[in-house]
């Protein structure tokens, strides 16, 4: 495999937009191409993430739709759907296309539009990522999935609602430093604990918001990347899957797909958890961040809650997690999230992150989880 680098990144403001997802992607892609210093004509393929376009925009075939709106209608384009991990899955496949020598420059990204429908509609659509016959019939929601994870983690390890709330407080604090974030206000532990119940033990402020937004990254083969301004190298990119039904997962306090994807990515990169300086991981719910920090090997199983509470994952802590504000404060436009996480890590490794910069970061990791924990992607990045 050839070496592959990210040479350009672009992210829209996250929040509510009166534009289609294709328009949001096109804005992010134009920024990414400008950052890469390449014209749109240099793009040889588009790998695109979009999840609920069929439901919220009555739009399928969103790959070519996005390419057309961007103005590169003839490049081969494929839409990836792995629930919330879609554009990270797109990224892994794009890296393989460039690594294999099929293309030299590939555009990767995604976009989502959900704030144009009601909360109860989006709650229904997000639940489509769980099994229709076995789980949707029960009225299982996406917060419900992670509430079951939370209760199992609390029961097994003694993790507390206060520790989960500490994740929300930390990510909101980080979000105040990110001008693209959906929420740029600090919240208190008491506000989290006192917020409306969604799926016990999860409350409103344990949950990431619904978000409109787009994100894009340009990847290139080594000889192209060497001519670019500031390439950030892809050191590893791995995917893992797990049982679809929650009943088939033996231990709901863990996410085995995270552990398997992380092990594969670390092996590709020849690195381990202790080499990582900055992490963007999938905090769709506060408990998801705690379980992910354990699954990635940053902390021992059962100690992720303690780590959050003690500030070890805050900016300035042992291993800063989600300096962007994470899904919790930056927002979670599901089809765009994986690409947006990669954009943040590239920005960090270029030492371009301003007030939220992790000083001296050389190795970064992104982790994106799909829906009911049945899909996980992990990638590792490094600067020259």
């Amino acid at each position, binding site marked *: 495999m050839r070496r592959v680098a990210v040479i350009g990144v672009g992210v829209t403001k996250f929040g509510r937009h009166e534009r289609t997802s294709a328009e949001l992607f096109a804005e992010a892609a134009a920024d990414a191409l400008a950052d890469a210093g390449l014209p749109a004509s240099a793009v040889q393929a588009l790998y695109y993430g979009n999840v609920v376009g069929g439901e919220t925009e009555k739009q399928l075939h969103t790959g070519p739709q996005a390419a057309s709106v961007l103005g590169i209608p003839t490049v081969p384009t494929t839409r990836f759907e792995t629930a919330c991990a879609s554009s990270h899955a797109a990224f892994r496949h794009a890296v393989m296309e460039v690594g294999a020598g099929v293309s030299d420059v590939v555009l990767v990204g995604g976009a989502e539009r959900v704030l144009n429908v009601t909360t*109860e509609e989006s*709650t229904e659509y997000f639940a489509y990522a769980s099994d229709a016959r076995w*789980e949707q019939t*029960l*009225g299982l929601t996406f917060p419900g999935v992670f509430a079951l994870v939370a209760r199992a983690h609390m029961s097994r390890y003694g993790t507390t609602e206060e520790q989960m709330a500490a994740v929300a407080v930390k990510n909101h604090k980080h979000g105040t430093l990110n001008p693209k974030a959906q929420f740029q206000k600090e919240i208190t532990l008491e506000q989290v604990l006192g917020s409306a119940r*969604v799926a016990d033990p999860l409350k409103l402020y344990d949950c990431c918001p619904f978000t409109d937004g787009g994100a894009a990254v340009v990847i290139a083969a080594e000889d192209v990347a060497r001519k670019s301004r500031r390439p950030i190298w892809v050191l590893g990119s791995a995917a893992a899957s797990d049982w679809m039904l*929650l009943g088939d997962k*033996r231990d*709901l306090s863990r996410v085995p797909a995270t552990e398997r994807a992380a092990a594969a990515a670390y092996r590709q990169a020849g690195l381990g958890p202790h080499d990582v300086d900055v992490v963007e991981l999938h905090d769709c719910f506060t408990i998801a961040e705690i379980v992910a920090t354990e699954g990635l090997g940053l902390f021992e199983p059962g100690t992720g809650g303690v780590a959050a509470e003690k500030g070890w994952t805050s900016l300035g802590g042992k291993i800063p997690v989600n300096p962007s504000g994470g899904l919790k404060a930056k927002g979670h436009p599901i089809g765009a999230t994986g690409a947006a996480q990669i954009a943040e890590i590239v920005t960090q490794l270029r030492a371009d992150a301003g007030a939220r910069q992790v000083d001296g970061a050389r190795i970064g990791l992104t982790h994106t989880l799909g829906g009911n924990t049945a899909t996980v992607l992990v990638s590792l990045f490094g600067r020259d």
Partner: protein
Amino acid sequence: MTEPVATLQEFFEQARQGQLTAVRCGRCGALAIPPKQFCPECSQRAWEPTSLSGRGTIASYTVIRVAPRGRADEVPYAIAAVRLEEGVSLLGRVVDIPFEKLAVGLPVRFRPLTYNGQTAVGFGPR
């Protein structure tokens, strides 16, 4: 042509009559519910249907307060992952148990439920 191991329709028809049916691997003895085409333990395809007792204990649970579209009149409702005594687990609605009594380890028993005309897995008190 490969014959189906057991269709979803067959499973839920039996469930509607109060019977939980799993399959056991004739090679390695692994138990699966719902059935899979191949045994995840030994990759063979030698399933034999087997009846489950329906008795289990709660492994995790939640009370849903914000429902998907069309189900707002059902909230709040409890969903639990239940470890059946045979060693396999199923997700189901919990009925006839007060929310404050819900706990990891609480014994429950399978009962069929119906939502929007579809049979679903439920659990009630032993």
